[in-house]
């Protein structure tokens, strides 16, 4: 759900751009985790559907059987080809988006190919396309017509053209920041299910306050972005619902900050200081959070904890700014590498990321998850498959976890975005990390890193530590 505002006709010139990447997605993502009845066990779930990889790190059903398939775009006797579309160097915030995402997809393909491929064929990327920030729709239209493309992986800043791709019947796997575009499309897949679109609340925000021992929360967002403002609204709503019982309240809310902080944020931070804010939730981009942190330090608010909007696993970012970021919190929706991941898909990811020299960040992880979904879909469709059958087969899976990397998603339901309490997945699960000494540190039980809340209970309750591996 990243809504990026830019004023450039193309890259370079004025980029008023902020992404709400994980802030909004975390916000919304909490609505999208589906699961079974919330049983909090660590036992591996039994395979109850064919071809899915639930609770297992080795692909169930092996690598499928080979049978000749004709007339399906991107499928030859040797390979199944996909395209990656993303925003590369033109990304004005300097995030490694296209490159890291594509590397994550490729790493998964390499891994998958090393254990036999899919349906007797290799998985490969036939084309990697950079949309240069503003040509998203044009590139999308080109890829639709491309006969060497079975499905499209997309990590772009804007989502123009996504609807065209979906309506053309091309399966598409996208990233969390773009997730709002997936609402209602059966062939568009988001790593943790389509996030909440409206009237959202999320337990994780409150949990972060509890972790930080905070009672007075401040929320920051940019005025020019509707998504930023809704993110702020979401946090406010969250604390209105569950805060009073816990003695936590939002004492400062500002959703009209100017992108880039041309006038600094001195007065805003002073207001937070006056209000006694001890936890700051951010609906702004990563780089701007650094500015906020600098101002907090300047005004002596060293005890105030800041929640990062996104950026898990971006080791370079943390190291470059270790002093500023010390003590900051972050919510993670994939299995944190700081948990006990031995023998899990997370370990596999790290192993293959290392082999291919992948620059690990949250987009690389999402690339891996997306690629796993693609492979799973084809395997689930059986040896004779096409786009629609793969999509349909995958949409029968009710508890997809990408090998334990994410909390289970019920794909029979999660194409429609939750709104308020409608279509809410049964549970909301998150892991929490803190930046300590220039690295991420898991908060909680390394064996049960996820904290899960029961979405059917409307009052606040303590989360249950869970593992999905």
């Amino acid at each position, binding site marked *: 759900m990243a809504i990026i505002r830019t004023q450039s*006709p193309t*890259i370079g010139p004025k*980029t008023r751009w902020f992404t709400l990447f994980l802030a909004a997605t975390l916000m919304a993502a909490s609505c999208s985790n589906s699961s079974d009845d919330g049983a909090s066990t660590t036992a591996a779930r039994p395979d109850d559907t064919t071809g899915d990889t639930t609770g297992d790190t080795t692909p169930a059903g092996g690598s499928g059987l080979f049978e000749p398939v004709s007339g399906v775009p991107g499928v030859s006797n040797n390979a199944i080809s996909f395209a990656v579309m993303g925003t590369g160097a033109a990304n004005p915030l300097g995030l490694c988006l296209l490159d890291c995402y594509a590397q994550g997809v490729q790493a998964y393909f390499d891994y998958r190919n090393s254990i036999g491929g899919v349906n007797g064929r290799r998985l490969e990327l036939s084309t990697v396309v950079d949309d240069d920030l503003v040509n998203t729709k044009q590139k999308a239209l080109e890829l639709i017509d491309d006969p060497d493309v079975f499905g499209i992986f997309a990590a772009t800043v804007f989502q123009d053209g996504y609807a065209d791709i979906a309506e053309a019947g091309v399966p598409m796997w996208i990233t969390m920041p773009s997730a709002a575009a997936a609402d209602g499309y059966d062939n568009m897949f988001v790593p943790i299910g389509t996030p909440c679109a409206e009237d959202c609340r999320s337990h994780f925000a409150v949990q972060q306050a509890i972790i930080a021992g905070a009672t007075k929360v401040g929320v920051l967002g940019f005025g020019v972005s509707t998504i930023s403002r809704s993110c702020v609204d979401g946090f406010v709503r969250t604390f209105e619902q569950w805060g009073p019982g816990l003695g936590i309240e939002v004492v400062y809310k500002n959703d009209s900050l100017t992108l880039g902080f041309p006038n600094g944020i001195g007065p805003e931070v002073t207001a937070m200081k006056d209000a006694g804010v001890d936890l700051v939730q951010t609906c702004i981009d990563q*780089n701007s959070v650094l500015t906020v942190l600098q101002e907090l330090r300047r005004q002596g608010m060293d005890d105030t904890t800041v929640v990062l909007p996104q950026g898990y696993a971006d080791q370079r970012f943390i190291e470059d700014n270790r002093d500023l970021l010390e003590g900051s919190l972050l919510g993670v929706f994939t299995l944190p590498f700081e948990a006990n991941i031995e023998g899990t898909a997370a370990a596999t990811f790290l192993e293959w990321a290392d082999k291919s020299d992948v620059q690990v960040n949250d987009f690389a992880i999402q690339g891996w998850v997306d690629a796993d979904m693609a492979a799973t879909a084809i395997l689930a469709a059986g040896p004779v498959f096409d786009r629609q059958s793969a999509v349909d087969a995958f949409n029968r899976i009710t508890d997809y976890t990408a090998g334990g990397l994410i909390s289970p998603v019920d794909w029979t339901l999660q194409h429609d975005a939750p709104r308020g309490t409608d279509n809410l997945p049964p549970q909301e699960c998150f892991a929490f990390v803190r930046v300590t000494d220039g690295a991420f540190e898991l908060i909680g039980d390394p064996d049960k890193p996820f904290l899960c809340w029961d979405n059917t209970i409307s009052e606040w309750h303590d989360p249950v530590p869970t593992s999905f591996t």
Partner: protein
Amino acid sequence: MFANIGEDIVTAVLQGAPPGTVYALVALGFVLAYKTSGVFNLAFGAQAYASAVLYFKTHAEWGWPVLPSLAVSVFVLAPLVGFLLESLIFRHLRTAPPVSSLVVAIGLTIAIPSIVDLALDFQPRNGQIPLGIVPNGNSVYYPVFDLYSFSRDELMAMGVATAAMLALAAMFRFTMVGLKMRAVVESPRLTELNGLAADRISISAWMLSSLFAGLAGVLIAPRFPTLAPGRFFDIVVVAIAAAAVGALVSLPRAYIGGLALGVAIALFNTFIPRWANDHSWLRPMQNNITPALPFVVLFLVLVFMPGLRRARFAADPLAGVDPPPRSTVIPAPISASEIVRRTLGTTLLVVTLIVLFTRGDSAFLYLAGQGAALAVVYLSITIITGLAGHISLCQGSFAAVGAFTTYQLAARYDTSVLVGAVAGALVAAAVGALLSVPLIRLSGVWIAIATLAFAFFFDAVMVKFSWTGAPSGVATGDLVVPRPVIGPWDMASDKSFLAFLLAVLAIATVAVMLLSRSTTGRMLRATRGSEIAAQSIGISPTRARVLAFSLAAGLAGLGGALLVIQQESVNYDTNFAPFAALFWLVLVVTFGARAPEGAIAGAATFTLFDKVVLQGTFIGWLLRSPDRVPGLLPVSPKWRLVLFGLGTIQYASHPEGVLEMARARRNRRRAEDDDHDDDHVELALEASV
């Protein structure tokens, strides 16, 4: 409580000082450039960006120590850029009207950052805040009155700004250097008659102001989370407001204006939210006026400070010495060969369209649709700039008004988008008319700046309102605009809508041409030549201007509506933002703002240049195989900005644009071949806009 208010005020003042220093620095630089070169150098921010990027590259990426980095980026690159700008570009514009230089500066604002990015292979990286020139510049703080503290970088910037202001003011007051530069600004030729080497003085002036731009860039950079040319341009616009306080010639007042602006904004941001807690009617002000404050100030200063407009400007009495800008040559009455050529051209166009419709893939169809809708917007530029002679930098905002109106009507009242488009055009026309009223007493450059202020104001404020912009809580992707249905003709497919767009474009083109030849058109052209002369023959300049603005705004609004219908969603940021609108102007002006062909060529270039040229599609087509395209293609889209940004340079000598210039050359050649000259050579009174 009251003692607290005192402290709070002081705290706010202190908090406003660092951003205020940034504005002061840029305002100083802007005034310096204006005083020493006579040019409204909007590209000041781009020059600052260039040095900031080089400093970042050398110091942060290559690890050079501070001093060599500083030396190279501020004391070598910056003056070099100034030297090149003066000798290659602005020296030849000395006798051109100020508006021409402004257009060139706009082109440079777009081209220079792209050149820098390409040459230095620069990409911002997240988490790397630009470093300043002082060690530990952003981590060591010094408390002030125990109320606030300043970082080393900030103190450095404040020190440099103050020292620069004093030094420059002293230079102008006590030395001959400033005097010589001012003399050259007024009349280089007269200066030479006084025995002074005008060209050398001009070069030193540009090198000085460019050096300052570089210095400002390096000092400003640490305040931004990442280096982006747009940030620097924003600050230039704000700084103009500060510079305007000093009537553009007083350095100390520009400095104070900048500081005052920063402090005022900090005070606003401190007290309005507090008061808004008790008085909710203030809330809209907090949300909306504060981000737009500089632009409001700029607009008010322009409208209400008469001293500014009558700032010391005197025409160069010896301007005629240099060959005057080429006059407009109105083409000869259609001769046979011209008819043949036009037929060929039209046939080619028709053939291209047929190919497009039958064999064009969806990407091309989409781009063609974009181009057609944008062409309608660009036609509005031919009205306001080509016909009426004003530079309007807010056409993007007018287009956005049309777009949003269409969306709102369709979303709320389920109106047909076509009706909505017409309504959007009308609303935009009304906005244009309203805007032009306070601008009545402005002229030339000031109109351009006022429209720029409005564009930024719109961008900062209007877009956020749910009744003008996107409703809150709705993701961009959800701003769905449906395609129209006329009778049995459902235009859901790109092809059918393209046909519709082309029809609308054709009608609009004909309308604009008719307007141009009509009495109204002549009236607008008359006021372009000389408002006083026009008044003397009974034309009301006020009415002409209001009419021009409303027509142009209406057409832009229509174009904007068509654009969002074509895209089936409203995406303000990629389509209508102020910076995008600058590039529109550049394109239209390069091709020729006086004829519809310029608008159409510009729109085609904007949408298709990337795909057809830069990505090698054309070469691939020529070579019959996309695989044989040379390895260095596709080229970065930034080249488009570079090429066309630099294309404005020829604007001053050829204000009629590339297309008309080519046609004039053909006509001249034909006239020279003929023995009798029956061409109309209209030495246009309005040789340049």
